[in-house]
């Protein structure tokens, strides 16, 4: 008769710890059997009896479960203690293993923190996912002016995109929107120029009164801004950031009520925002001081000059706008609702500017509502690529480390054959032993993770510095937070299991009898296959890293030695910004004349000149060109680079002309009538004809086909192509015009090291005019290097990790080799006894190992050719399949591998054959 209750007991008994299983089963069976007998005496249906017994036996499940923790607890504690004791017995081995793994985990954790901060962290505000960011796109004929921050313009179609709005538009959004429960706005960051009384002015931003409230940011001290602060003529108050509070005031709680100088005035501090809140600007940018729109800032402050007048000049777009979605509202609701409001405000503002010409239509802006959970995201997007590449590099190194660890564990396990065989013979289950090995691996990983977390907290700053261009307010706190610690812990567990499982299984698959009987001829075949496979993998990964490093380094070298078209050596450059109150425009030209004259008399100076924009500084004007009589083909990119130059510019920079003449002082007096173009422009717009004497004009309108007579300029010379903006970019079509007064960059050619003369040159300028603001003293080499700072960082990073990977792979190689040799002592002894010479032995051993390396190299090259495609856009002057790089990488690999293989091989060959034959392996 079927007895389902007994089956159930049999099944559930598998859950019970083995030690207790027999007893437990007997107890349940005893009870059930007795119960069955008792019930059977009564007249009851057989099925009902069985059902009753089955129900009774269901409780066995809970009982068995209750016994689980006891089993695991006891066994695990025992495992951990045993494992810990073993690890402490082999201190150096343990230290090496933990250290290398800690480096791998630490680097990965640091990078994870960085990636988390840069890519994933949302603003630490209330419900960040309700926040939206407003942006717009439009055609080329914009309805606004004075955009701050700047807009981006597609050079071909002229389509524009931006994220700033007029105060009028913002005010209307705020008042009329139903989809957004709150709307707030903020300007770009500004900073007053340093003065003697205030050498380090804080970085500031202007915001609407609703800023802190809409974000849901409380004050940790004092209060945050309110709508009352926004009213015209409200008292000038400011809220400071926690970082600024810590750095400037040492977290002194008496800071409330103190004054701070910013935006050209004095503001009273009324509150401090919490730590971790860095504002809504882009990553890396954070304001120290936040003031409200109502503040009456003088137009001579550092704020872009339209900001204070934005309330009365509705054609000026200087505010970035964000909002919070109302309950149940979506982004498209908000977009549909605000679009007409924006267009009405834009049209009204443009009409108020007085520039609207009847009959000419402008392009209406189209509103876009994006998620604002992360604040502004431009830099985030640009950085994400770099973050991924760095992650890839660091992960590869970690994999190599793990492969090393597996080999180490395999070697250790093989040495414990006797112990394993004994325990198996004594009745331990294989599963038990596997668990033991896993626990040991997890212990290692746990120690490594702890050490790795420490390493990560040190190296996180380094990674960040490499990623984010050095800005005065690196707004990412260098600390390891909970998420990173969690990451390290999970990594440790995963790595511990992954690394431990293969050795655990391989080691416990032993022929007990053979080992106990004597001679420990273990089954090496599976083990050595795994080892060799891992080795091949390690070599392959090292090759990938070496190739990448080679490519980056060569890119860097190419950039550093690139021909820029003019003489870059011994040039000092600095920027001069005139102050509107001290330096009236009409007098600037003569001021610069005097400055240049004085600088040229400074000892050590060969020549001095000036230009509107710095060379190799990435900064320039980009209007559109109009060539009268030439019809612009559709889709042609007609942007040109416009540079203003002083009289002796071409001679000082040693930028040669290929046709015509240079600009002189007379051209400057004439203003804009005579210009010099470069070869690229001549090739594009005057192919095959002499451009000298021809006329061109520049305009802000991409669609213009003609220009008024008084805007035309005559070409008097053609200059050689040179790199003006960055070293990477091919020389763009460029127009050199005579200099017109405004901010300027000075270039000074010196006889010797320009850095040595920086102070005397500065003093010379000051002696002419002490009020001129001078910044950015650097040599042109340094200036150029700023444009490829990222390439340099990558070259350093990849070389470091490539070298590390190579070293690790070779340590692994050495370890496996040494172990192999140790185990083949008998075989070697036989060979030697049979007459093989030392050299032959060495060769035989090395050939084996180098064939592995060769396999790894081939695999690595294949992987490299695929993976380096992702970085091809970062290279300069070479393709991803670069002969010299590959040759050097592979050559280096073989050289180091040969060395790693040679040492144990040599040691094997010195072995005494008689002792070898007698060896117990």
């Amino acid at each position, binding site marked *: 008769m079927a007895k389902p209750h007994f089956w159930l007991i049999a099944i559930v008994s598998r859950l019970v710890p083995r030690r207790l299983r027999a007893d437990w089963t*007997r*107890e349940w*069976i*005893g*009870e*059930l*059997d*007795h*119960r069955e*007998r008792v019930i059977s005496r009564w007249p009851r249906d057989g099925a009902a009896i069985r059902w009753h017994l089955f129900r*009774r*036996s*269901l*409780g*066995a*499940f*809970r*009982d068995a479960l*209750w*016994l689980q923790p006891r089993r695991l607890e006891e066994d695990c504690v025992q495992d951990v203690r045993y494992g810990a004791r073993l690890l402490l017995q082999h201190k150096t081995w343990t230290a090496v293993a933990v250290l290398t793994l800690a480096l791998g985990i630490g680097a990965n954790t640091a990078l994870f923190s960085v990636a988390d901060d840069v890519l994933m962290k949302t603003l630490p505000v209330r419900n960040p996912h309700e926040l939206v960011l407003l942006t717009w796109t439009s055609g080329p004929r914009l309805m606004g002016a004075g955009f701050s921050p700047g807009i981006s313009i597609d050079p071909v179609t002229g389509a524009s995109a931006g994220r700033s709005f007029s105060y009028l538009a913002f005010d209307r959004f705020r008042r009329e929107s139903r989809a957004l429960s709150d709307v707030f706005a903020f300007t770009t960051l500004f900073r007053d120029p340093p003065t003697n009384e205030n050498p380090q002015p804080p970085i500031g931003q202007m915001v609407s009164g609703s800023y802190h409230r809409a974000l849901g940011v409380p004050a940790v001290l004092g209060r945050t801004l309110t709508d009352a602060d926004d009213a015209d003529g409200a008292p000038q108050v400011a809220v400071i950031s926690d970082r600024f509070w810590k750095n400037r005031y040492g977290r002194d709680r008496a800071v409330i009520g103190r004054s701070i100088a910013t935006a050209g005035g004095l503001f009273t501090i009324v509150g401090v925002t919490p730590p971790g809140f860095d504002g809504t600007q882009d990553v890396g940018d954070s304001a120290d001081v936040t003031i409200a729109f109502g503040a009456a800032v003088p137009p001579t402050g550092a704020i872009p000059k339209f900001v204070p007048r934005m309330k009365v000049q509705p054609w000026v777009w200087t505010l970035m706008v964000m909002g919070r979605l109302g309950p149940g509202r979506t982004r498209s609701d908000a977009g549909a609702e605000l679009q007409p409001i924006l267009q009405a405000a834009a049209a009204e503002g443009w009409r108020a500017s007085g520039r609207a010409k009847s009959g000419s239509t402008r392009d209406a802006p189209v509103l876009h509502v994006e998620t604002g959970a992360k604040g502004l995201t431009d830099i985030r997007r640009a950085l994400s690529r770099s973050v991924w590449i760095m992650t890839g590099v660091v992960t590869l190194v970690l994999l190599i480390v793990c492969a090393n660890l597996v080999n180490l564990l395999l070697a250790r396990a093989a040495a414990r054959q006797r112990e394993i065989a004994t325990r198996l013979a004594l009745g331990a289950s294989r599963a038990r032993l596997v668990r033991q090995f896993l626990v040991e691996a997890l212990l290692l990983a746990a120690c490594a993770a702890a050490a790795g977390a420490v390493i990560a907290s040190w190296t996180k700053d380094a990674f960040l510095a490499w990623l984010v261009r050095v800005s005065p307010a690196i707004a990412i706190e260098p600390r390891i937070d909970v998420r990173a610690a969690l990451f390290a812990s999970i990594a440790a567990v995963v790595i511990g299991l992954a690394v431990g499982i293969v050795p655990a299984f391989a080691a416990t698959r032993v022929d007990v009898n053979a080992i106990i009987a004597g001679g420990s001829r273990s089954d090496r075949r599976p083990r050595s296959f795994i080892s060799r496979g891992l080795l091949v993998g390690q070599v392959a990964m090292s090759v990938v890293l070496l190739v990448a490093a080679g490519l980056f380094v060569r890119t860097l070298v190419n950039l550093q030695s690139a021909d820029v078209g003019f003489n870059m050596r011994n040039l000092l450059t600095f920027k001069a910004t005139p102050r509107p109150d001290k330096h009236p425009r009409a007098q600037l030209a003569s001021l610069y004349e005097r400055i240049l004259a004085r600088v040229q008399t400074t000892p050590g100076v060969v020549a001095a000149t000036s230009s509107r924009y710095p060379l190799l500084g990435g900064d320039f004007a980009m209007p559109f060109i109009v060539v009268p009589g030439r019809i612009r083909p559709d889709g042609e990119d007609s942007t040109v680079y416009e540079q203003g130059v002083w009289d002796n510019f071409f001679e000082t920079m040693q930028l040669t002309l290929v046709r015509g003449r240079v600009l002189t002082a007379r051209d400057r007096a004439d203003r804009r009538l005579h210009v010099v173009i470069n070869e690229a422009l001549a090739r594009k717009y005057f192919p095959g004809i002499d451009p000298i004497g021809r006329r061109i004009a520049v305009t802000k309108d991409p669609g213009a086909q003609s220009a008024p007579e008084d805007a035309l300029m005559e070409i008097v010379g053609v200059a050689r192509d040179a790199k003006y903006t960055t070293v990477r970019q091919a020389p763009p079509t460029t127009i050199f015009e005579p200099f017109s007064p405004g901010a300027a960059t000075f270039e000074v050619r010196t006889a010797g090291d320009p850095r040595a003369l920086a102070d005397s040159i500065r003093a010379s300028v000051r002696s002419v005019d002490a009020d001129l603001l001078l910044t950015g003293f650097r040599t042109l080499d340094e200036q150029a290097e700023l444009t490829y700072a990222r390439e340099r960082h990558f070259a350093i990073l990849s070389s470091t990790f490539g070298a590390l990977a190579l070293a690790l792979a070779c340590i692994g190689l050495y370890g496996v080799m040494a172990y192999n040799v140790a185990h083949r002592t008998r075989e070697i002894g036989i060979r030697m006894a049979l007459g093989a010479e030392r050299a032959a032995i060495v060769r035989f051993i090395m050939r084996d190992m180098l064939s592995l390396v060769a396999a790894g190299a081939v695999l690595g090259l294949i992987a490299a050719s695929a993976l380096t495609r992702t970085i091809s856009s970062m290279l300069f002057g070479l393709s991803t399949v670069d002969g010299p790089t590959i040759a050097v990488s592979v050559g280096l690999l073989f050289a180091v591998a040969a060395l790693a293989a040679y040492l144990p091989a040599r040691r094997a060959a010195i072995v005494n054959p008689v002792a070898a034959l007698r060896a117990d392996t």
Partner: protein
Amino acid sequence: MASYLSYSSTVILQAIASGYQYGFDIIDLTGLPSGTVYPALRRMEDGGVVLSRWEKPEVAQSESRPPRKYYVLTKAGETALSDALKRYRLLDGSRRVRIGRPARERA
């Protein structure tokens, strides 16, 4: 089990003290499910409150069935039980009922 006994554990102890020393008998008397009674018994055994014993093999063999396990109170268990009864006054000791002597003593 230095801390106090839970209500269900007290009930179980009382059952044992009343002579219901086999697992299923305790289940019948207390009305608690087997998934409660057995873990409680294990816990109490860990804590030294009860002891488990197997009935004499002769007894089981005479009835041609597998032997059963039974539980007895230890000295500590008796103390714990009386303390607990003071706390759970509803289970007052006067309700101790002896129905019959357990099989082991008959042998």
